[in-house]
């Protein structure tokens, strides 16, 4: 079946069997391997992507279910000007060690900050509850996310083009 969705602002399309998960679609059909295959049953959060503004486990969703919708993966965060502030703070403070959980953690954090620009530590913890990190103990991640929130609030928001919304074929 044909699946067409918007990935990081671009319309992407592929012919896939119905049993293809969104994670397999991204990794194996679009070669976007930033979303990781961890537990593959929705426990670890390594496959987290942002779907229509919400963090979701790409492993527990069919590509067919995402047809016509808008997906942001870790590949969509950095620009020509440099890394996304979350990526930058994680790099600078050593918030990641092996890094396998990183794309999922950063996208969960981005989805949180997009909705709540001034989260408390507890709200950050709640937002990361579905992202397992076996290296770090989360402390630098939580501090880093709070730091980015403060920085982003203090910078006047430049005029950005409206976020690209995929053609909503299916309402």
């Amino acid at each position, binding site marked *: 079946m044909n699946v067409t969705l918007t990935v990081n602002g671009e319309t992407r399309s592929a012919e896939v069997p119905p049993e293809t998960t969104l994670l397999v679609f991204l990794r194996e059909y679009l070669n976007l391997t930033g979303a990781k295959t961890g537990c593959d*049953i*929705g426990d670890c959060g390594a496959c987290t992507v942002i779907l229509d503004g919400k963090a979701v486990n790409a492993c*527990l969703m*069919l590509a067919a279910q995402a047809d016509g919708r808008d997906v942001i993966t870790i590949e969509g965060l950095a620009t020509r000007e440099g890394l996304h502030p979350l990526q930058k703070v994680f790099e600078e403070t050593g918030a990641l060690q092996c890094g396998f959980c990183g794309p999922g953690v950063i996208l969960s954090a981005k*989805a949180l900050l997009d909705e709540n620009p001034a989260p408390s530590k507890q709200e950050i913890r709640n*937002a990361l*509850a579905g992202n397992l990190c076996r290296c770090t103990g989360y402390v630098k991640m939580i501090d880093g996310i709070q730091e980015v929130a403060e920085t982003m609030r203090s910078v006047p928001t430049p005029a950005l083009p409206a976020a690209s919304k995929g053609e909503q074929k299916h309402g």
Partner: protein
Amino acid sequence: MKPFTYERPTTPAAAAAAVTRRPDAKFIAGGTNLLDLMKLQIETPGHLVDVQDLRLDTIEATDDGGLRIGARVTNTALASDPRVRRDYGVLARAILAGASGQLRNKATTAGNLLQRTRCPYFYDTYQPCNKRQPGSGCAAIGGYGRPLAVIGGSDACIATHPSDMAVALRLLDARVETVTADGTTRAIPIADFHRLPGDTPHVETALARGELITAVTLPKPLGGTHVYRKVRDRASYAFALVSVAAVIRPDGTGRVALGGVAPKPWRAEAAEAELPSGAKAVADALLAGARPTADNAFKLPLVERTIAAAISDARE
């Protein structure tokens, strides 16, 4: 996953007809539980009917002062709705006590009610399980019983219902609205929606084949203080060993329902008359006839203490 075909109908009756037509068809909503079970080949549907285009994703006020929650409203949307937070706090708290943000963003109201047990023997396809394979036996009875039911089970099955949301819906006397292929609708009281296992643990709800949940309705708000207390093996992202949903009024009367102890959300209206006498009287009445295993007998005193904590929370 075994190969399957997939469709997205646009009306509830068409979706019900699509599942009724094919004995191997299933509805898919959020898919957070179904896809997991399909990967393990515990569920092997030949056809999936996606309900996302049925326009069942709004929360509306009803004429009698309650709310009608569309079947496909996500757990996140339901828990963050201002009317739910104000008037049905126990429901918002129960939902937020479950799963992770990523799962709640996809999981739906109807799908949450229909999720399958997390009994480890149901998940282990090398073990007999009457729920997974009717007639094969129950490895949980005599096995590792810590997470399993202490009441309401049978000689065929002692699995628990894993939902937090459903415990709050039981407390609130919700009703489950459905439609069938020929357009017939009905409203099932939540108390009658989930079935006890008896000799047929694979039959988990009152739904007929192909009957589609369209909404869950809540009666007008109860008032009182709303509490949801969940006790589990780690602080987040785990299923309940015991959970208590409670609405307590200033005069000490109220309602109590339990999760984590039975094959369905567990409530006994008669037990609520004991609320002014304290947690022990309520727990004794709720758990009369309990048959715990050696591994989960701890749930009986834990229920009493969790009810006591809930009553104490409500007084604060």
